[in-house]
């Protein structure tokens, strides 16, 4: 499985908001985060954790849909997120702690996601 990352970040790992979870997030590689850029296929504002299903174009032009897990709606709502914060078609760029298996999944954090043009995600406070 080719990693569909556009950039591989060598930066120091930061704690994902998803790490404030009721279960272990050690399955995500916090030491080797990657940058992903893609189009939101679906934003699931669900219990126990929220998900972005992100369509990412691989280097060979094919598309992989990544399953990206974040904090609970309770945690995200404290940062001003709602079920409508992201919608299908939004183009975003985010830092992801990928699954250790290399499969297209990972954890993300509200502090590490922006729109593709660099603009902040619009939230409600």
């Amino acid at each position, binding site marked *: 499985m080719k990693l569909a990352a556009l950039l591989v970040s060598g930066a120091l*790992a930061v704690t994902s908001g998803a790490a404030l*979870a009721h279960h*272990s997030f050690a399955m995500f590689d916090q030491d080797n985060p990657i940058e992903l850029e893609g189009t939101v296929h679906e934003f699931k504002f669900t219990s*126990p954790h929220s998900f972005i299903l992100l369509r990412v174009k691989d280097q060979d032009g094919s598309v992989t849909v990544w399953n990206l897990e974040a904090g609970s709606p309770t945690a995200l709502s404290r940062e001003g997120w709602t079920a409508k914060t992201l919608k299908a078609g939004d183009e975003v760029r985010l830092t992801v702690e990928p699954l250790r298996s290399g499969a297209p999944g990972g954890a993300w954090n509200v502090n590490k996601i922006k729109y593709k043009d660099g603009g902040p995600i619009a939230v409600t406070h």
Partner: protein
Amino acid sequence: MRNIIGIIALAGALAITIGDAQAFDDSKYPNLKGQWRRADLGGGQRGGLRFDSSKPPGKGQQAPLIPEYQAIFEANLADQAAGGQGTDPTFTCLSPGMPRIMIGYAPMEIVVTPETTYILMEHIHDNRRIHTDGRDWPEEPEPMFAGYSIGKWVDEDGDGRYDVLVVETRNLKNPRSYDASGIPFHEDGKTVVKERIYLDKADPNLLHDEITTFDNALTRPWMVMKNYRRVATDKPIWWREDVCAEGNNHVRIGGENYYLSAEGLLMPAKKNQAPPDLRYFKQSAR
């Protein structure tokens, strides 16, 4: 005559109603109303929310485990580092159980009645009932993740108001761990948890839960202080619904944990993880 009887009966009924209303004098209890959130925000620290908020996660918790269970804990850490869930069982939406419920993953509400103090957890509805009606322990109970809790309100400072809820919890079901790092309990299921729950004397919006755990995997009782802050708001509080099965993407098959893809298909969680055993499926070349 019938009118007189009716009036007497009505007066009697009213007296009973008023009598019942006067039985619960909430001024005798501390004000625990509102929404409480853990004081430990957990941010900026790898390992997330931990049992002892005053210490680093994982081995940093310095859990006083006997050698056998320290070995189990360390094997669990190795499994987690490889992408597994180790001895942390909650990824399949199992209740964290006691005492882990009191980490306070989401806000909580405390409702005090004379017979029962309810701790209502927004997190996957891990609610607790603390019975204060003087009952004895149940005979041969089925263990529960939250256990069975019996408590007693105590007026420690003698001012005529209760200030501490002293609680004991028994009959806890396994599997449980203290937090997401997988610190294990003894498999014998004989954990006992004792708590002292009280408002801070200097700050009535700060709540303390002094939790002491007795377990045969420990070398000694383990005491940890959990703290919560009351949310300051004059607006109505709306509580979230938290149904874990709604969006859980973690799957356990044959003792192994897997992860669901965006399409809802199984993916490996560990590097080079084998697929699950499909012996019950008719398999044909695709």
